[in-house]
């Protein structure tokens, strides 16, 4: 089966280079493109024009669920399912239910945050053209890459190549899907 063309992968050797290259690709109006970096490069989100991550929305939902779970569990067990007087205290009070609800808020927030990160990143995804390229070894080690996908409406092989070389790419390779 003939390999289909996925996009271009251009190597940059330093963090300032990828930063400026990302600004140029952003300003050229591409949508389906990405940067591959060995670590989160500070400021690259802005250079790529990414919006603020949506992970905290998942966290908030998780936290609210956790707090509600704690409060309702303690109410259900102590005041509804089997009301039992212990030490003359009320069957339910939000005060003594608070520490456990607090812990469950944190527990559920943690799970929701991580789930949110995986969902938004579309992970796990064990197959990807970038992973197939031998360049990934350096992409996770010490080099920085811009990947422009062929499915981008503005994609034109020669113009994309010209843009990347003009941005200072050290090497441009073609990725197959």
């Amino acid at each position, binding site marked *: 089966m003939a390999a289909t063309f996925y996009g271009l992968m251009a190597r940059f050797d*330093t*963090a*300032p280079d990828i*930063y400026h290259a*990302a600004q140029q690709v952003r300003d050229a109006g591409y949508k389906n493109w*990405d*940067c*591959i*970096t*060995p*670590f*989160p*490069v*500070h*400021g*690259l*989100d802005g*250079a*790529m024009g990414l919006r*603020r*991550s949506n*992970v905290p929305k998942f*966290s908030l939902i998780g936290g609210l669920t956790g707090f509600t779970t704690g409060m309702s*569990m303690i109410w259900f*067990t*102590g005041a509804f399912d*089997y009301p*039992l007087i*212990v030490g003359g205290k009320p069957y339910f009070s939000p005060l*003594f*239910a608070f*520490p*456990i609800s*607090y*812990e469950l808020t*944190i*527990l559920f*927030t*943690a799970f929701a*945050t*991580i789930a*949110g*990160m995986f969902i*938004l*990143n579309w*992970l*796990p*995804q*064990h*197959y*990807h053209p*970038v*992973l197939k390229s*031998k360049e*990934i*070894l350096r*992409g*996770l*080690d*010490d080099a920085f890459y811009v990947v422009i996908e062929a499915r981008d409406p503005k994609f034109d092989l020669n113009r994309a190549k010209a843009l990347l070389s003009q941005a200072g790419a050290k090497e441009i390779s073609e990725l197959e899907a």
Partner: protein
Amino acid sequence: MAHAHTDHPAPAILAEVKPVSFPRATLVEKNRSFSWVTEKICGIIEGPTPRWWWIAFAVSGFLASFTVAGIIYLVSTGVGVWGHANPVNWAWDIVNFVFWIGIGHAGTLISAILCLLRQKWRTSINRAAEAMTIFAVVCAAIFPVFHVGRVWFAVLPGYLFPFPNANAIWPNFRSPLEWDVFAVSTYGTVSVLFWYIGLIPDLAILRDRFYRGGDKIRSALYGFFAMGWRGSNRHWSNYEMAYLVLAGISTPLVLSVHTIVSFDFAVSLLPGWHTTIFPPYFVAGAIFSGFGMVLTLMLPLRAIFRLEDLITQYHIDCMCKIILATGTIVGYAYGMEFFIAWYGSNPYEGFAFINRAFGHYAWAYWIMITCNVVTPQFFWFKSIRRNIGLVWILSIFVNVGMWFERFVIIVTSLARDFLPSSWGYYSPSAVEIFTFFGTFGVFGVLFLLFIRFLPIMPMAEIKAVMPQADVHGGHDKH
């Protein structure tokens, strides 16, 4: 830093006073490159297993067998094999539990609180410290789970977790002991999640290095847990946010865990336990002991794997200073407890403290004072902080002292409460002693497996704080 902001002119006063510009401490010495970091950390995993590792593993495994044997004997015989008896019905089990939980706290402090405070030096020690947290929680959990004797009762009929028991009664949620179940299990779970999230980018490096090196099996194993990570910046954006949220929730979590542990005592009415200073005092003590353990573990690792460029003298200075600060807080708490016992004019409270210092357990009290109050004061001196061997020895004193702190608090108060007719003296049984010392073996086995199979430092995070990572080339130009 250079004042290159043209749109924000420097205040005129600066020209007159000429402030000294202090260079920031370098976090990775000798101007190492990104790939040097990768080779260094991955090299530990990819290289052959060193002989010392097998020796240490065998010793730890042997030691861990004490815990296993002690627990089997306990479960098959009954909790009477431990030395608890009236009036000391809580002793080494909860001492060991609080000791191990406290040790874990430094890991979360490093990974969460120092992250929020933007302390960049945390990067080279946070992975190992978080691993220490998880393994410490494992060791801690052994004691509350097995002190119920018939351990299956801890879960299924609901001694600890809320499953209805034989009489359909639920656990008492008014009790701090029940809060503790939730606090510690949340703490353990969130610590594992936080640790795992940090590992993902590093596992991806190992996956690809093993794949290109032809080791398909190891590549598949690391790759499974790397979740197909490919260093995409669109991913990093969400990843960084998730990491920040996790740091944000782990901070109140770690403070709440030892607060709730201290409620186990503070909510009771026993003299010496019933004090409001306990939550902050316990949290400071936990961080104190945890940093002691971090130094105990990291200094040998640094020497064995030649990590001096990554764990620099600056890192050791920072850790010593945290030990100094928290140790001094602990010393202050000891003094304040005495003051309040006198100032509160409660004869039982007053007696509890005089008895701690001069009663039957005075030996334990003075070991505690020596190790926890005197030891950290050495860290005022730069020459001592630079003497790595001495720092290591002092860090062990910190660990010993914090174990004795919990012993003093728990046992002295129980052995001498209100009525002299119910006084007693507690000594641990052999089973208890072996079970406790065995937990160091359990910890050792887990930690050795960690340093053999997982990257002991977060490569991506270290690279991000190196000077080359600055997109403005190290100059403050925007």
